[in-house]
Protein backbone atom coordinates (compact mmCIF):
# COMPACT_ATOMS: atom_id res chain seq x y z
CA UNK A 1 0.00 0.00 0.00
CA UNK A 2 2.63 2.55 -0.91
CA UNK A 3 1.09 5.55 -2.61
CA UNK A 4 3.11 8.45 -3.88
CA UNK A 5 1.03 10.83 -1.82
CA UNK A 6 -0.81 9.31 1.10
CA UNK A 7 -4.28 10.36 2.13
CA UNK A 8 -3.36 10.49 5.78
CA UNK A 9 0.15 10.54 7.13
CA UNK A 10 1.52 10.38 10.63
CA UNK A 11 5.21 11.25 10.65
CA UNK A 12 7.45 10.65 13.66
CA UNK A 13 4.63 11.46 16.04
CA UNK A 14 5.63 11.64 19.70
CA UNK A 15 3.58 12.50 22.69
CA UNK A 16 4.89 13.52 26.10
CA UNK A 17 2.93 14.46 29.16
CA UNK A 18 4.48 16.65 31.83
CA UNK A 19 4.74 14.84 35.15
CA UNK A 20 6.46 15.63 38.40
CA UNK A 21 10.15 15.86 37.72
CA UNK A 22 10.14 15.41 33.95
CA UNK A 23 8.14 14.19 31.02
CA UNK A 24 6.29 10.95 30.53
CA UNK A 25 6.72 9.80 26.96
CA UNK A 26 3.54 8.03 25.91
CA UNK A 27 4.26 7.77 22.19
CA UNK A 28 7.53 7.79 20.36
CA UNK A 29 8.20 7.93 16.64
CA UNK A 30 4.91 6.72 15.25
CA UNK A 31 4.93 6.63 11.45
CA UNK A 32 1.92 5.59 9.42
CA UNK A 33 0.66 6.23 5.90
CA UNK A 34 -2.96 5.48 5.16
CA UNK A 35 -4.41 5.33 1.65
CA UNK A 36 -7.86 6.51 0.75
CA UNK A 37 -10.56 3.92 1.39
CA UNK A 38 -8.29 1.85 3.56
CA UNK A 39 -9.51 0.19 6.75
CA UNK A 40 -6.85 0.25 9.46
CA UNK A 41 -7.07 -1.36 12.89
CA UNK A 42 -4.92 -0.27 15.81
CA UNK A 43 -4.35 -3.07 18.27
CA UNK A 44 -2.20 -3.35 21.36
CA UNK A 45 -2.28 -3.82 25.08
CA UNK A 46 -3.91 -1.29 27.38
CA UNK A 47 -1.92 1.83 27.93
CA UNK A 48 0.03 1.52 24.69
CA UNK A 49 -1.25 4.83 23.40
CA UNK A 50 -3.75 3.65 20.79
CA UNK A 51 -6.26 6.22 21.96
CA UNK A 52 -3.58 8.89 21.95
CA UNK A 53 -2.84 8.16 18.30
CA UNK A 54 -6.52 8.38 17.46
CA UNK A 55 -6.94 11.61 19.44
CA UNK A 56 -4.00 13.15 17.62
CA UNK A 57 -5.55 12.30 14.25
CA UNK A 58 -8.88 13.64 15.52
CA UNK A 59 -7.18 16.85 16.63
CA UNK A 60 -8.40 16.47 20.19
CA UNK A 61 -4.74 16.24 21.25
CA UNK A 62 -1.69 17.93 19.79
CA UNK A 63 1.39 15.77 19.29
CA UNK A 64 4.42 17.13 21.09
CA UNK A 65 6.68 15.91 18.28
CA UNK A 66 6.03 15.21 14.63
CA UNK A 67 2.59 15.70 13.18
CA UNK A 68 -0.34 14.46 11.21
CA UNK A 69 -1.17 15.42 7.64
CA UNK A 70 -4.54 14.88 5.99
CA UNK A 71 -4.49 15.46 2.23
CA UNK A 72 -1.31 17.42 2.68
CA UNK A 73 -2.69 19.72 5.37
CA UNK A 74 -1.58 19.57 8.96
CA UNK A 75 -4.16 18.60 11.55
CA UNK A 76 -4.26 21.28 14.24
CA UNK A 77 -7.78 21.11 15.65
CA UNK A 78 -10.78 18.79 15.68
CA UNK A 79 -13.16 18.94 12.76
CA UNK A 80 -16.02 17.10 11.13
CA UNK A 81 -13.84 15.83 8.24
CA UNK A 82 -12.31 13.54 10.87
CA UNK A 83 -15.47 12.27 12.53
CA UNK A 84 -15.07 10.22 15.68
CA UNK A 85 -17.21 7.33 16.90
CA UNK A 86 -16.59 7.26 20.64
CA UNK A 87 -16.46 4.12 22.72
CA UNK A 88 -19.50 5.02 24.81
CA UNK A 89 -21.60 6.45 21.99
CA UNK A 90 -21.47 10.03 23.37
CA UNK A 91 -24.95 10.89 22.19
CA UNK A 92 -26.67 13.88 23.74
CA UNK A 93 -29.05 12.17 26.17
CA UNK A 94 -31.67 14.90 25.79
CA UNK A 95 -31.91 14.59 22.01
CA UNK A 96 -33.66 11.91 19.98
CA UNK A 97 -31.71 9.75 17.53
CA UNK A 98 -32.86 12.03 14.73
CA UNK A 99 -31.92 15.20 16.60
CA UNK A 100 -28.50 13.84 17.52
CA UNK A 101 -27.65 13.24 13.88
CA UNK A 102 -29.34 16.47 12.88
CA UNK A 103 -27.12 18.46 15.24
CA UNK A 104 -24.11 17.25 13.26
CA UNK A 105 -25.76 17.63 9.85
CA UNK A 106 -26.94 21.16 10.54
CA UNK A 107 -23.47 22.13 11.65
CA UNK A 108 -21.65 20.61 8.66
CA UNK A 109 -24.13 21.29 5.85
CA UNK A 110 -25.63 24.53 7.16
CA UNK A 111 -24.81 26.34 3.95
CA UNK A 112 -24.71 23.64 1.34
CA UNK A 113 -28.05 21.92 1.94
CA UNK A 114 -31.64 23.10 2.18
CA UNK A 115 -33.70 22.20 5.22
CA UNK A 116 -35.44 19.41 3.31
CA UNK A 117 -32.14 18.04 2.00
CA UNK A 118 -30.70 18.01 5.49
CA UNK A 119 -33.75 16.19 6.76
CA UNK A 120 -33.47 13.55 4.05
CA UNK A 121 -29.74 13.20 4.71
CA UNK A 122 -30.29 12.61 8.44
CA UNK A 123 -32.89 9.95 7.72
CA UNK A 124 -30.73 8.39 5.01
CA UNK A 125 -27.82 7.95 7.41
CA UNK A 126 -29.98 6.54 10.16
CA UNK A 127 -31.45 4.08 7.67
CA UNK A 128 -27.94 3.14 6.59
CA UNK A 129 -27.31 1.83 10.11
CA UNK A 130 -30.81 0.29 10.23
CA UNK A 131 -32.14 2.81 12.72
CA UNK A 132 -34.85 4.30 10.51
CA UNK A 133 -37.50 2.87 12.82
CA UNK A 134 -36.33 4.71 15.95
CA UNK A 135 -35.91 8.31 14.80
CA UNK A 136 -37.74 9.78 17.77
CA UNK A 137 -36.25 7.52 20.44
CA UNK A 138 -33.90 9.06 22.92
CA UNK A 139 -30.64 7.30 23.89
CA UNK A 140 -32.04 6.04 27.20
CA UNK A 141 -34.80 4.29 25.26
CA UNK A 142 -32.30 2.49 22.98
CA UNK A 143 -30.14 -0.57 23.60
CA UNK A 144 -26.35 -0.29 23.69
CA UNK A 145 -26.02 -1.57 20.13
CA UNK A 146 -28.65 0.83 18.84
CA UNK A 147 -26.94 3.78 20.52
CA UNK A 148 -23.68 2.82 18.90
CA UNK A 149 -25.47 2.63 15.52
CA UNK A 150 -26.76 6.16 16.01
CA UNK A 151 -23.24 7.25 16.95
CA UNK A 152 -21.96 5.73 13.71
CA UNK A 153 -24.78 7.36 11.74
CA UNK A 154 -23.86 10.71 13.23
CA UNK A 155 -20.22 10.25 12.24
CA UNK A 156 -21.08 9.05 8.72
CA UNK A 157 -23.51 11.93 8.25
CA UNK A 158 -20.60 14.35 8.50
CA UNK A 159 -19.20 12.77 5.31
CA UNK A 160 -15.77 12.57 6.89
CA UNK A 161 -12.56 12.06 4.96
CA UNK A 162 -11.47 9.74 7.73
CA UNK A 163 -13.73 7.90 10.13
CA UNK A 164 -12.09 7.39 13.51
CA UNK A 165 -13.50 4.73 15.80
CA UNK A 166 -12.37 4.24 19.39
CA UNK A 167 -13.33 0.69 20.34
CA UNK A 168 -16.75 1.24 18.86
CA UNK A 169 -18.04 -2.20 19.74
CA UNK A 170 -16.09 -2.77 22.95
CA UNK A 171 -19.04 -2.40 25.30
CA UNK A 172 -21.40 -4.63 23.33
CA UNK A 173 -22.31 -8.29 23.65
CA UNK A 174 -20.84 -10.72 21.13
CA UNK A 175 -23.95 -11.12 18.97
CA UNK A 176 -24.66 -7.41 18.70
CA UNK A 177 -21.00 -6.82 17.99
CA UNK A 178 -20.97 -9.33 15.12
CA UNK A 179 -24.07 -7.72 13.70
CA UNK A 180 -22.58 -4.25 13.82
CA UNK A 181 -19.31 -5.46 12.34
CA UNK A 182 -21.21 -6.82 9.35
CA UNK A 183 -23.09 -3.54 9.02
CA UNK A 184 -19.85 -1.60 9.19
CA UNK A 185 -18.23 -3.74 6.46
CA UNK A 186 -21.26 -3.22 4.26
CA UNK A 187 -21.27 0.55 4.78
CA UNK A 188 -17.55 0.82 4.27
CA UNK A 189 -17.76 -1.09 0.98
CA UNK A 190 -20.58 1.15 -0.16
CA UNK A 191 -19.02 4.49 0.82
CA UNK A 192 -15.35 3.47 0.45
CA UNK A 193 -14.53 5.48 3.57
CA UNK A 194 -11.13 5.58 5.16
CA UNK A 195 -11.38 4.11 8.64
CA UNK A 196 -9.03 3.94 11.59
CA UNK A 197 -10.40 1.76 14.33
CA UNK A 198 -9.02 0.94 17.75
CA UNK A 199 -9.87 -2.54 18.91
CA UNK A 200 -9.01 -5.04 21.61
CA UNK A 201 -10.47 -7.88 19.62
CA UNK A 202 -8.13 -9.88 17.38
CA UNK A 203 -10.95 -11.44 15.33
CA UNK A 204 -12.54 -8.08 14.79
CA UNK A 205 -9.26 -6.63 13.59
CA UNK A 206 -8.64 -9.44 11.09
CA UNK A 207 -12.21 -9.53 9.84
CA UNK A 208 -12.56 -5.81 9.18
CA UNK A 209 -9.11 -4.52 8.31
CA UNK A 210 -6.99 -4.09 5.24
CA UNK A 211 -4.03 -3.59 7.52
CA UNK A 212 -3.55 -4.19 11.22
CA UNK A 213 -1.21 -1.83 13.04
CA UNK A 214 0.18 -3.51 16.13
CA UNK A 215 1.57 -1.27 18.82
CA UNK A 216 4.32 -2.01 21.31
CA UNK A 217 3.82 -1.55 25.01
CA UNK A 218 4.27 1.85 26.59
CA UNK A 219 5.93 3.91 27.84
CA UNK A 220 7.31 5.34 24.63
CA UNK A 221 5.01 3.07 22.64
CA UNK A 222 5.40 2.87 18.92
CA UNK A 223 4.28 0.79 15.99
CA UNK A 224 5.70 -2.73 16.33
CA UNK A 225 4.46 -4.47 13.23
CA UNK A 226 2.02 -3.81 10.43
CA UNK A 227 0.16 -6.80 9.03
CA UNK A 228 -1.49 -6.85 5.61
CA UNK A 229 -4.75 -8.75 5.56
CA UNK A 230 -5.04 -9.88 1.94
CA UNK A 231 -8.49 -11.43 2.25
CA UNK A 232 -11.06 -10.99 -0.51
CA UNK A 233 -14.03 -8.70 0.13
CA UNK A 234 -16.88 -9.09 0.88
CA UNK A 235 -15.79 -11.18 3.81
CA UNK A 236 -17.98 -13.70 5.49
CA UNK A 237 -17.21 -14.49 9.11
CA UNK A 238 -18.49 -18.06 8.94
CA UNK A 239 -16.58 -18.99 5.79
CA UNK A 240 -13.42 -17.34 7.11
CA UNK A 241 -13.32 -19.59 10.17
CA UNK A 242 -11.87 -22.33 7.98
CA UNK A 243 -9.76 -20.08 5.78
CA UNK A 244 -6.04 -20.72 6.14
CA UNK A 245 -5.08 -17.14 5.30
CA UNK A 246 -7.47 -15.79 7.91
CA UNK A 247 -6.04 -18.07 10.56
CA UNK A 248 -2.49 -17.15 9.60
CA UNK A 249 -3.34 -13.46 10.13
CA UNK A 250 -4.99 -14.18 13.44
CA UNK A 251 -2.04 -16.25 14.51
CA UNK A 252 0.42 -13.56 13.67
CA UNK A 253 -1.49 -10.89 15.63
CA UNK A 254 -1.85 -13.24 18.59
CA UNK A 255 1.81 -14.08 18.54
CA UNK A 256 2.73 -10.38 18.43
CA UNK A 257 0.49 -9.59 21.40
CA UNK A 258 1.19 -12.60 23.60
CA UNK A 259 4.73 -13.62 22.70
CA UNK A 260 6.61 -10.57 21.51
CA UNK A 261 4.74 -7.93 23.51
CA UNK A 262 3.61 -9.88 26.49
CA UNK A 263 2.30 -7.51 29.08
CA UNK A 264 4.60 -7.47 32.07
CA UNK A 265 2.74 -7.73 35.33
CA UNK A 266 5.04 -6.25 37.95
CA UNK A 267 2.86 -7.03 40.97
CA UNK A 268 1.71 -10.47 42.05
CA UNK A 269 -1.94 -10.81 41.10
CA UNK A 270 -4.50 -10.35 43.77
CA UNK A 271 -7.93 -11.86 43.33
CA UNK A 272 -9.49 -8.41 43.41
CA UNK A 273 -7.54 -7.38 40.34
CA UNK A 274 -8.52 -10.32 38.24
CA UNK A 275 -11.51 -8.56 36.71
CA UNK A 276 -9.57 -5.47 35.70
CA UNK A 277 -6.77 -7.39 34.02
CA UNK A 278 -9.22 -9.56 32.16
CA UNK A 279 -10.98 -6.53 30.76
CA UNK A 280 -7.74 -4.91 29.80
CA UNK A 281 -6.23 -7.84 27.96
CA UNK A 282 -6.94 -8.02 24.24
CA UNK A 283 -9.32 -10.87 23.72
CA UNK A 284 -9.48 -13.36 20.93
CA UNK A 285 -13.12 -14.13 21.28
CA UNK A 286 -14.54 -17.33 19.86
CA UNK A 287 -12.31 -20.21 18.90
CA UNK A 288 -9.22 -19.32 20.89
CA UNK A 289 -9.11 -22.69 22.60
CA UNK A 290 -10.05 -24.68 19.54
Amino acid at each position, binding site marked *: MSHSRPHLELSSVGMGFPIKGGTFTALDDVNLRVAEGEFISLIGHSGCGKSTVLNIVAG*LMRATRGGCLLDGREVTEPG*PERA*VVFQNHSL*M*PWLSAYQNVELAVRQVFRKSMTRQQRRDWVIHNLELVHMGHAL*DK*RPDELSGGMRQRVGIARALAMQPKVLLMDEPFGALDALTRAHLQDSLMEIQRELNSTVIMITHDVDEAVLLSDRIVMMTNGPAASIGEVLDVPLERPRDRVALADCAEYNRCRQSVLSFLYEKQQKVTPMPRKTGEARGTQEDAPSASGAVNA
Partner: protein
Amino acid sequence: MQQAATVTRITDFMKQQMAGFSPQGAIRAVSMPVLGVLAFLLLWQMAAQNVTTSLGSLPGPAGVWAQAGNLWADHLDEQRRAAEFIEMQKERNAEILARNPDAEVRIRPYSGKETFIDQILTSLGTVFSGFLLASLLAIPLGIVVGLNRYLYEAVNPVIQVFKPVSPLAWLPIVTLVVSATYTVEDPMVSRAFITSMVTVSLCSLWPTLVNTIMGVNAVSQDLRNVSQVLRLGFFTHVWRVVLPSAIPMIFTGLRLSLGIAWMVLIAAEMLAQSPGLGKFVWDEFQNGSSESLGRIMVAVIVIGLIGLVLDRGMLMLQRLLSWDRASATH
Protein backbone atom coordinates in the same frame (compact mmCIF):
# COMPACT_ATOMS: atom_id res chain seq x y z
CA MET B 1 -43.52 17.21 14.27
CA GLN B 2 -42.29 19.33 17.16
CA GLN B 3 -45.84 19.69 18.39
CA ALA B 4 -46.58 16.01 18.08
CA ALA B 5 -43.44 15.25 20.07
CA THR B 6 -44.51 17.65 22.81
CA VAL B 7 -47.94 16.03 22.98
CA THR B 8 -46.35 12.58 23.24
CA ARG B 9 -44.10 13.81 26.01
CA ILE B 10 -47.05 15.16 27.96
CA THR B 11 -49.08 11.96 27.55
CA ASP B 12 -46.00 9.93 28.51
CA PHE B 13 -45.67 12.13 31.54
CA MET B 14 -49.29 11.51 32.52
CA LYS B 15 -48.87 7.77 32.03
CA GLN B 16 -45.78 7.80 34.21
CA GLN B 17 -47.68 9.64 36.90
CA MET B 18 -50.43 7.04 36.77
CA ALA B 19 -48.17 4.02 36.49
CA GLY B 20 -48.20 1.57 39.35
CA PHE B 21 -51.64 2.62 40.47
CA SER B 22 -53.31 -0.06 42.61
CA PRO B 23 -56.19 0.12 45.13
CA GLN B 24 -54.13 -1.22 48.02
CA GLY B 25 -51.30 1.13 47.24
CA ALA B 26 -53.70 4.04 47.06
CA ILE B 27 -55.25 3.16 50.42
CA ARG B 28 -51.85 2.99 52.03
CA ALA B 29 -50.65 6.12 50.32
CA VAL B 30 -53.64 8.01 51.72
CA SER B 31 -54.07 6.38 55.12
CA MET B 32 -50.57 6.80 56.54
CA PRO B 33 -50.34 10.58 55.99
CA VAL B 34 -53.89 10.98 57.34
CA LEU B 35 -52.97 9.02 60.47
CA GLY B 36 -49.84 11.11 60.90
CA VAL B 37 -51.74 14.37 60.64
CA LEU B 38 -54.41 13.15 63.08
CA ALA B 39 -51.78 12.12 65.59
CA PHE B 40 -50.15 15.52 65.26
CA LEU B 41 -53.46 17.33 65.81
CA LEU B 42 -54.11 15.25 68.92
CA LEU B 43 -50.70 16.02 70.40
CA TRP B 44 -51.15 19.67 69.56
CA GLN B 45 -54.53 19.81 71.31
CA MET B 46 -53.16 18.17 74.44
CA ALA B 47 -50.02 20.30 74.57
CA ALA B 48 -51.74 23.61 73.79
CA GLN B 49 -54.02 23.43 76.81
CA ASN B 50 -51.03 23.30 79.12
CA VAL B 51 -49.26 26.37 77.77
CA THR B 52 -50.48 29.66 79.15
CA THR B 53 -49.26 32.97 77.74
CA SER B 54 -50.09 36.58 78.48
CA LEU B 55 -52.71 36.29 75.74
CA GLY B 56 -54.36 33.22 77.24
CA SER B 57 -53.62 29.59 76.55
CA LEU B 58 -52.30 28.48 73.16
CA PRO B 59 -55.15 27.74 70.79
CA GLY B 60 -55.72 24.12 69.76
CA PRO B 61 -56.59 22.98 66.25
CA ALA B 62 -60.25 23.85 66.69
CA GLY B 63 -59.46 27.41 67.77
CA VAL B 64 -57.10 27.88 64.87
CA TRP B 65 -59.67 26.52 62.44
CA ALA B 66 -62.20 29.02 63.79
CA GLN B 67 -59.72 31.86 63.26
CA ALA B 68 -59.11 30.66 59.70
CA GLY B 69 -62.86 30.95 59.17
CA ASN B 70 -62.83 34.46 60.67
CA LEU B 71 -60.00 35.56 58.42
CA TRP B 72 -61.87 34.30 55.38
CA ALA B 73 -65.05 36.04 56.51
CA ASP B 74 -63.08 39.29 57.02
CA HIS B 75 -61.78 38.97 53.50
CA LEU B 76 -65.25 38.49 52.02
CA ASP B 77 -66.47 41.42 54.09
CA GLU B 78 -63.75 43.71 52.78
CA GLN B 79 -64.43 42.61 49.23
CA ARG B 80 -68.09 43.39 49.66
CA ARG B 81 -67.28 46.81 51.06
CA ALA B 82 -64.92 47.50 48.20
CA ALA B 83 -67.57 46.53 45.69
CA GLU B 84 -70.13 48.75 47.43
CA PHE B 85 -67.69 51.66 47.51
CA ILE B 86 -67.05 51.37 43.77
CA GLU B 87 -70.75 50.95 43.08
CA MET B 88 -71.54 54.02 45.12
CA GLN B 89 -69.05 56.10 43.16
CA LYS B 90 -70.44 54.84 39.87
CA GLU B 91 -73.93 55.86 40.88
CA ARG B 92 -72.75 59.27 41.95
CA ASN B 93 -70.78 59.71 38.74
CA ALA B 94 -73.84 58.76 36.74
CA GLU B 95 -75.82 61.42 38.61
CA ILE B 96 -73.17 64.03 37.96
CA LEU B 97 -73.00 63.13 34.30
CA ALA B 98 -76.78 63.28 34.01
CA ARG B 99 -76.71 66.85 35.30
CA ASN B 100 -73.65 67.94 33.36
CA PRO B 101 -72.44 65.67 30.54
CA ASP B 102 -69.10 67.52 30.30
CA ALA B 103 -68.12 66.95 33.92
CA GLU B 104 -64.90 65.08 34.59
CA VAL B 105 -65.56 62.02 36.70
CA ARG B 106 -63.19 59.50 38.20
CA ILE B 107 -63.39 56.46 40.36
CA ARG B 108 -61.10 56.33 43.35
CA PRO B 109 -59.85 52.92 44.37
CA TYR B 110 -61.02 51.48 47.66
CA SER B 111 -58.34 51.84 50.29
CA GLY B 112 -59.52 49.59 53.06
CA LYS B 113 -57.23 47.47 55.21
CA GLU B 114 -55.39 44.56 53.62
CA THR B 115 -56.94 41.23 54.53
CA PHE B 116 -55.10 37.97 55.16
CA ILE B 117 -55.77 36.82 51.59
CA ASP B 118 -54.39 40.09 50.20
CA GLN B 119 -51.28 39.62 52.31
CA ILE B 120 -50.82 36.10 50.91
CA LEU B 121 -51.08 37.38 47.35
CA THR B 122 -48.64 40.19 48.10
CA SER B 123 -46.17 37.75 49.60
CA LEU B 124 -46.45 35.44 46.59
CA GLY B 125 -45.89 38.39 44.27
CA THR B 126 -42.80 39.45 46.20
CA VAL B 127 -41.33 35.96 46.43
CA PHE B 128 -41.78 35.34 42.71
CA SER B 129 -40.24 38.68 41.77
CA GLY B 130 -37.31 38.10 44.09
CA PHE B 131 -36.86 34.53 42.90
CA LEU B 132 -37.08 35.58 39.25
CA LEU B 133 -34.49 38.30 39.78
CA ALA B 134 -32.21 35.83 41.58
CA SER B 135 -32.57 33.24 38.78
CA LEU B 136 -31.96 35.80 36.05
CA LEU B 137 -28.74 36.74 37.80
CA ALA B 138 -27.61 33.32 38.99
CA ILE B 139 -28.13 31.13 35.89
CA PRO B 140 -26.22 33.23 33.33
CA LEU B 141 -23.53 34.03 35.89
CA GLY B 142 -23.29 30.35 36.83
CA ILE B 143 -22.87 29.36 33.18
CA VAL B 144 -20.12 31.90 32.58
CA VAL B 145 -18.27 30.99 35.78
CA GLY B 146 -18.77 27.26 35.25
CA LEU B 147 -17.23 27.42 31.79
CA ASN B 148 -14.02 29.03 32.95
CA ARG B 149 -11.87 27.34 35.56
CA TYR B 150 -9.88 30.48 36.36
CA LEU B 151 -12.99 32.56 36.79
CA TYR B 152 -14.39 29.86 39.05
CA GLU B 153 -11.30 29.91 41.25
CA ALA B 154 -11.60 33.67 41.47
CA VAL B 155 -15.32 33.78 42.23
CA ASN B 156 -15.57 30.79 44.53
CA PRO B 157 -14.30 32.46 47.73
CA VAL B 158 -16.80 35.29 47.31
CA ILE B 159 -19.63 32.79 46.90
CA GLN B 160 -18.55 30.79 49.93
CA VAL B 161 -18.48 33.92 52.10
CA PHE B 162 -21.85 35.32 51.07
CA LYS B 163 -23.76 32.05 50.82
CA PRO B 164 -24.40 31.61 54.56
CA VAL B 165 -25.35 35.23 55.28
CA SER B 166 -28.73 35.57 56.97
CA PRO B 167 -31.41 37.83 55.48
CA LEU B 168 -31.49 39.75 58.74
CA ALA B 169 -27.95 40.92 58.08
CA TRP B 170 -28.66 42.00 54.51
CA LEU B 171 -31.84 43.85 55.29
CA PRO B 172 -30.48 47.05 56.89
CA ILE B 173 -27.97 47.47 54.05
CA VAL B 174 -30.56 46.81 51.38
CA THR B 175 -33.01 49.17 53.09
CA LEU B 176 -30.49 52.00 53.17
CA VAL B 177 -29.32 51.40 49.62
CA VAL B 178 -32.85 51.21 48.28
CA SER B 179 -33.87 54.37 50.16
CA ALA B 180 -30.87 56.17 48.74
CA THR B 181 -31.20 54.99 45.13
CA TYR B 182 -34.90 54.38 44.60
CA THR B 183 -36.13 57.96 44.72
CA VAL B 184 -38.73 58.08 41.97
CA GLU B 185 -41.64 60.49 42.29
CA ASP B 186 -44.91 58.59 42.57
CA PRO B 187 -43.31 55.14 42.35
CA MET B 188 -45.12 52.25 40.69
CA VAL B 189 -44.01 49.85 43.37
CA SER B 190 -43.40 50.68 46.98
CA ARG B 191 -39.95 50.99 48.44
CA ALA B 192 -40.71 48.30 50.99
CA PHE B 193 -41.53 45.89 48.18
CA ILE B 194 -38.20 46.60 46.47
CA THR B 195 -36.36 46.15 49.76
CA SER B 196 -37.88 42.77 50.55
CA MET B 197 -37.57 41.60 46.93
CA VAL B 198 -33.88 42.49 46.77
CA THR B 199 -33.25 40.83 50.14
CA VAL B 200 -34.99 37.69 48.92
CA SER B 201 -32.86 37.70 45.76
CA LEU B 202 -29.61 38.21 47.64
CA CYS B 203 -30.31 35.28 49.93
CA SER B 204 -31.80 32.89 47.40
CA LEU B 205 -29.49 33.21 44.43
CA TRP B 206 -26.65 31.17 45.93
CA PRO B 207 -28.00 27.63 45.55
CA THR B 208 -28.93 28.30 41.92
CA LEU B 209 -25.53 29.87 41.29
CA VAL B 210 -23.58 27.06 42.92
CA ASN B 211 -25.62 24.32 41.25
CA THR B 212 -25.42 25.96 37.83
CA ILE B 213 -21.65 26.20 38.16
CA MET B 214 -21.47 22.53 39.20
CA GLY B 215 -23.78 21.46 36.40
CA VAL B 216 -21.77 23.33 33.79
CA ASN B 217 -18.55 21.95 35.22
CA ALA B 218 -19.88 18.42 35.06
CA VAL B 219 -20.58 18.38 31.31
CA SER B 220 -18.95 15.12 30.26
CA GLN B 221 -15.68 15.26 28.38
CA ASP B 222 -17.20 13.01 25.69
CA LEU B 223 -19.94 15.51 24.91
CA ARG B 224 -17.39 18.31 24.89
CA ASN B 225 -15.32 16.27 22.42
CA VAL B 226 -18.36 15.84 20.19
CA SER B 227 -18.90 19.57 20.34
CA GLN B 228 -15.27 20.14 19.37
CA VAL B 229 -15.36 17.66 16.49
CA LEU B 230 -18.49 19.39 15.20
CA ARG B 231 -16.77 22.75 15.64
CA LEU B 232 -19.82 24.18 17.37
CA GLY B 233 -19.51 27.90 17.97
CA PHE B 234 -19.39 29.22 21.52
CA PHE B 235 -23.08 30.11 21.75
CA THR B 236 -24.26 26.94 20.00
CA HIS B 237 -22.03 24.93 22.33
CA VAL B 238 -23.54 26.62 25.38
CA TRP B 239 -27.10 26.46 24.10
CA ARG B 240 -27.10 22.93 22.63
CA VAL B 241 -24.61 21.10 24.86
CA VAL B 242 -23.78 22.88 28.12
CA LEU B 243 -27.20 24.18 29.09
CA PRO B 244 -29.19 20.96 28.48
CA SER B 245 -26.47 19.01 30.25
CA ALA B 246 -26.67 21.25 33.30
CA ILE B 247 -30.47 21.52 33.39
CA PRO B 248 -31.02 18.82 36.05
CA MET B 249 -28.50 20.47 38.39
CA ILE B 250 -29.91 23.93 37.66
CA PHE B 251 -33.37 22.74 38.62
CA THR B 252 -32.06 21.28 41.87
CA GLY B 253 -30.60 24.70 42.61
CA LEU B 254 -33.80 26.48 41.66
CA ARG B 255 -35.82 24.33 44.01
CA LEU B 256 -33.46 25.03 46.91
CA SER B 257 -33.50 28.71 46.02
CA LEU B 258 -37.27 28.94 45.95
CA GLY B 259 -37.46 27.27 49.37
CA ILE B 260 -34.96 29.73 50.79
CA ALA B 261 -36.68 32.65 49.07
CA TRP B 262 -39.95 31.81 50.77
CA MET B 263 -38.36 31.47 54.21
CA VAL B 264 -36.36 34.66 53.82
CA LEU B 265 -39.38 36.57 52.57
CA ILE B 266 -41.35 36.13 55.80
CA ALA B 267 -38.42 37.39 57.87
CA ALA B 268 -37.81 40.29 55.50
CA GLU B 269 -41.45 41.38 55.51
CA MET B 270 -41.53 41.25 59.26
CA LEU B 271 -38.51 43.51 59.62
CA ALA B 272 -39.03 45.77 56.65
CA GLN B 273 -42.71 46.22 57.44
CA SER B 274 -43.50 45.63 53.81
CA PRO B 275 -46.97 44.21 53.24
CA GLY B 276 -47.25 40.44 53.23
CA LEU B 277 -47.57 37.45 55.49
CA GLY B 278 -44.57 38.45 57.59
CA LYS B 279 -46.12 41.81 58.33
CA PHE B 280 -49.40 40.11 59.11
CA VAL B 281 -47.69 37.96 61.74
CA TRP B 282 -45.87 40.95 63.19
CA ASP B 283 -49.02 43.07 63.29
CA GLU B 284 -50.95 40.36 65.05
CA PHE B 285 -48.12 39.98 67.54
CA GLN B 286 -48.19 43.73 68.25
CA ASN B 287 -51.99 43.73 68.32
CA GLY B 288 -52.02 41.28 71.19
CA SER B 289 -55.74 40.53 71.22
CA SER B 290 -57.13 37.22 72.43
CA GLU B 291 -57.46 36.14 68.80
CA SER B 292 -53.88 36.99 67.82
CA LEU B 293 -52.27 33.69 68.71
CA GLY B 294 -54.85 31.77 66.68
CA ARG B 295 -54.38 34.07 63.72
CA ILE B 296 -50.60 33.77 63.85
CA MET B 297 -50.96 29.99 63.86
CA VAL B 298 -53.20 30.16 60.82
CA ALA B 299 -50.44 32.17 59.16
CA VAL B 300 -47.82 29.61 60.20
CA ILE B 301 -49.80 26.78 58.68
CA VAL B 302 -50.55 28.74 55.51
CA ILE B 303 -46.86 29.66 55.16
CA GLY B 304 -45.98 25.98 55.44
CA LEU B 305 -48.61 24.88 52.96
CA ILE B 306 -47.59 27.50 50.41
CA GLY B 307 -43.95 26.49 50.82
CA LEU B 308 -44.94 22.90 50.12
CA VAL B 309 -46.99 23.87 47.07
CA LEU B 310 -44.11 25.98 45.72
CA ASP B 311 -41.70 23.06 46.08
CA ARG B 312 -44.07 20.58 44.44
CA GLY B 313 -44.73 23.10 41.69
CA MET B 314 -41.02 23.38 40.93
CA LEU B 315 -40.76 19.59 40.89
CA MET B 316 -43.61 19.33 38.39
CA LEU B 317 -41.97 21.99 36.26
CA GLN B 318 -38.68 20.09 36.41
CA ARG B 319 -40.37 16.86 35.35
CA LEU B 320 -41.99 18.58 32.42
CA LEU B 321 -38.97 20.55 31.25
CA SER B 322 -35.94 18.46 32.15
CA TRP B 323 -34.90 15.56 29.95
CA ASP B 324 -33.51 13.71 32.96
CA ARG B 325 -36.62 12.65 34.85
CA ALA B 326 -34.59 10.31 37.03
CA SER B 327 -33.13 13.33 38.81
CA ALA B 328 -36.58 14.82 39.44
CA THR B 329 -37.67 12.82 42.47
CA HIS B 330 -38.84 14.12 45.84
